[in-house]
């Protein structure tokens, strides 16, 4: 008993000093990700995709302020935004069940799922703590082909969310086509006028509030981008921020 007390004091004071460096940095930053169908960070952790950096050790740590449309939430691990990384697309039908692995069970406001900038599903937990497991069945609203689903776990009592992008081949055509094949033809020379037939192919400067159709092009920050998914632009969805919507040409 006596020795215990003697040892505890230095420990407690060392801990007080070290608390920020030891704990605020590591364990506090980790919480959850989509394990199945395998999200990009799960594919890194599983070794399916290499060259991911430290996210292999902490696929649960893709945390950033709420509201981003990027696969990494705009925070650490920008490798997750790289569409040319060879992510494997999981073949699914018209809907799929998304399974989460959690390392901390934060009270939750919502779980959101997006394709191409459109929210396709939301599950409102009303501030409750998740149970042992979390899974959601999400319908893809008739979308087919290769798609990237962005999943967001919005924490109720902080400004943060957890992000996971899940690459899918919807429609059960099977197999895994090479990545980034189905967005509009990229084989054309970089002269812009898109030969696609979509009516509003502006070619103008990107503007929030504009409805863009697949294949249309815009300029932003001196670069030209081609629209990968029809959507109405919102502030924060500037082309360089949302690789799911805009491909640089």
């Amino acid at each position, binding site marked *: 008993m006596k*020795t*215990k007390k003697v*040892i*505890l004091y*230095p*420990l*407690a004071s*060392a*801990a*007080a000093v*070290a*608390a920020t*460096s*030891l*704990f605020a940095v*590591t*364990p*506090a930053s*980790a919480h*959850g990700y989509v*394990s*199945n*169908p*395998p999200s990009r960070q*799960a594919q890194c*952790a*599983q*070794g399916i995709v290499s060259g991911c950096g430290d996210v*292999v*050790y*902490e*696929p*649960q740590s893709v945390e950033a302020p709420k509201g981003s449309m990027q696969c990494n939430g705009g925070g650490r691990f920008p490798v997750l935004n790289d569409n040319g990384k060879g992510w494997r697309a*999981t073949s699914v039908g018209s809907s799929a069940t998304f*399974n*989460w*692995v*959690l*390392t*901390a*069970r*934060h009270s939750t406001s919502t779980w959101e799922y997006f394709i191409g900038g459109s929210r396709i599903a939301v599950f409102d937990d009303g501030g409750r703590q998740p*149970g*042992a*497991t979390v*899974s959601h069945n999400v319908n893809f609203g008739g979308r087919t082909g290769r798609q990237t689903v962005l999943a967001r776990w919005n924490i109720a009592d902080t400004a943060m969310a957890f992000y996971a992008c899940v690459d899918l081949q919807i429609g059960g055509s099977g197999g895994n086509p090479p990545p980034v094949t189905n967005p509009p033809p990229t084989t054309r020379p970089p002269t812009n006028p898109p030969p696609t037939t979509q009516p509003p192919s502006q070619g103008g400067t990107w503007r929030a509030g504009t409805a863009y159709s697949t294949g249309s092009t815009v300029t932003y920050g001196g670069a030209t981008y081609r629209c990968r998914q029809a959507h109405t632009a919102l502030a924060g969805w500037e082309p360089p921020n949302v690789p799911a919507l805009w491909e640089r040409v």
Partner: protein
Amino acid sequence: MRRRAVLALAAAVLAAGCGSPAPQEAPVAAVAGPHNETDVMFLQMVLDHHRQGAELVALAADRGRRPEVRQLAARMKQQWADESRTMTAWLQGWGAPLEADQDAGVHAGHGDLHSLRPSDIEELKAAGEADFDRTALSLLLGHLHNTVEVARMESGKGANADAKALAGQITTTRQEQVQQMLKLLAS
């Protein structure tokens, strides 16, 4: 219980003056060299993880539907027992408590969130056949990720060579298990 029986048997054998010792677990090699508070915290936290996960891994080893799940859980159970024995001996060798002082404030605000809750174990027990493996693997994955975080903290900030070697070994073995479990979840 069993250990007590083994010890009693060993004592009886020794008392009888028999030369060959009863088959016992090999003694843990003493930890050498200096250590810092990160080393202590690492051992305490991983010991705590193993305690928390004991029921989970036992359930998975027993009730897993797929043989791969049962085998993996059984291996993990053995591995945690071996590691716990080593870590306990090291902490005792340093004269350090086996558990972090809950009043130190170190875990404040996060201890509960990052822990397996009794309700998680209850949900696993209640899971039907169709959900058991998915539930067990999801819980085990979360649990291992937390252990890896503590091991990586040790690798970065620990001082003791033996403890850091153990941390490296924990990271490597857990990453392999994470890969296996992610694969099982996806198949």
